[in-house]
């Protein structure tokens, strides 16, 4: 069977605008991904716990509130603490190019701005995810 990639999509913090993330969720579903959507107002702790329980390949966060310079690093730090830094963290929202650059330099995946075509996001994930998660021997 061809490999299924699992993506957790979450909205951290207090912003309640989920139109964008729902568009991404539907686009990724249609591109053959298994999308776990956890809804609004998630804490970084909830997001990372869900990512681990669901054993996802990537976490995508949508932030329109301006709190991205706090929330992205918080999630990255927690993933690292849990030994799950091989899970890709990417995102989108109202985020300036300078901030996006800073986040990517700190180890974050791509940050997509308003108007990014869904196809770009799909291609990015299809290029980035294969072979990314570390393989451990099970038995």
């Amino acid at each position, binding site marked *: *069977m061809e*490999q*299924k990639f699992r993506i957790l999509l979450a909205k951290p913090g207090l912003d309640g605008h989920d139109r964008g993330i729902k568009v991404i*969720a*539907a686009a*990724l*579903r*249609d*591109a*053959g*991904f*298994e*999308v*776990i*959507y*956890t*809804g609004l107002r998630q*804490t970084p*702790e*909830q997001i990372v*716990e*869900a990512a*681990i*329980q*669901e*054993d996802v390949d990537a976490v995508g966060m949508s932030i329109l509130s301006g709190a991205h310079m706090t929330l992205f690093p918080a999630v990255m730090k927690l993933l690292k603490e*849990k*030994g*799950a830094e091989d899970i890709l963290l990417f995102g989108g929202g109202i985020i300036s190019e300078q901030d996006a650059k800073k986040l990517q330099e700190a180890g974050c995946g791509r940050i997509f701005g308003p108007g990014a075509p869904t196809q770009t996001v799909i291609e990015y994930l299809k290029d980035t995810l294969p072979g990314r998660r570390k393989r*451990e*021997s*099970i*038995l």
Partner: protein
Amino acid sequence: MTVLDRFYKKDRSALSRIISFIENREDGYLELLSRIYNISSNSYKIGITGPPGSGKSTLVDKIAIRYLEKGFSVGIIAVDPTSPFTGGALLGDRIRMQDLASRGEVFIRSMATRGSGGGLSEATREVAIALESYGFDIILIETVGVGQVELDVAGLCDSTVVALVPESGDSVQTLKAGLMEIANIFVVNKADREGSGRLVSELRLMLESRGQKQKEGWILPVIKTEAINGVGIDTLTDKIIDHRKHVENLYTQSGYREKRVKSELITILDRKIRARVLKELLEDNSVDSYVKQIVNGESDPYSITEKLMRKITI
């Protein structure tokens, strides 16, 4: 240290990896399952099924909280459909489980059906085995939104709760075969809506008139809930606990466990054999040449089936 070693040490990320390993049918998954399979596991499996939008996820959320308050650990498997067109899936059951998701004693795993048509995915049974082996006291299994014939959950779980809503249909619907026959407990959720009283009495009438009020000595209850407001959840949880006592009683009777194990074994064999035989019969893409013959009018699906069936010898 292998992932399985970490799993035995109750490392949740190891549990998670093991579930993926089983779900993806990676090489060695049968050996893994044979190592963790435990016939005398003390986990109790509760299935929640019902049509789309009947409040299954919210019910699971509330039932899980009640069990946690009683000191039990809870593992949850929530299944949502895979698209038959794209292979993708949107798994949204966690949204209704926000209160739970942040509690340490709970483990929630969303699964896509990946082509299985019985309301669960093919690997759900085996993922439940992983949760049992990990040591959860209670395992809640939520099906996809079902119609009338997605009944796999009943074969897997010890107690099956069928959740309906006032809009679920009239007295004729309650008479139909399938979904109505697998319940150990009926729930009429969203009971604040118009028509809930009518549905409750129609269900009770159906159960009485069919002589199905009792099933293996268990009187089928019909419970009204408003899951979102927490109304009726105590009654429901108490009924599940009653049913558990009933089932444990059945298990002490000779033949009951054997019957369940038999159906489990046949289900597993059936899937494996089917996949294997199809692979053998249709190797090197001979299926395409058969398709061509049918399209060209040289043959038909039935002659080809007959011809292929003759190739099977054991």
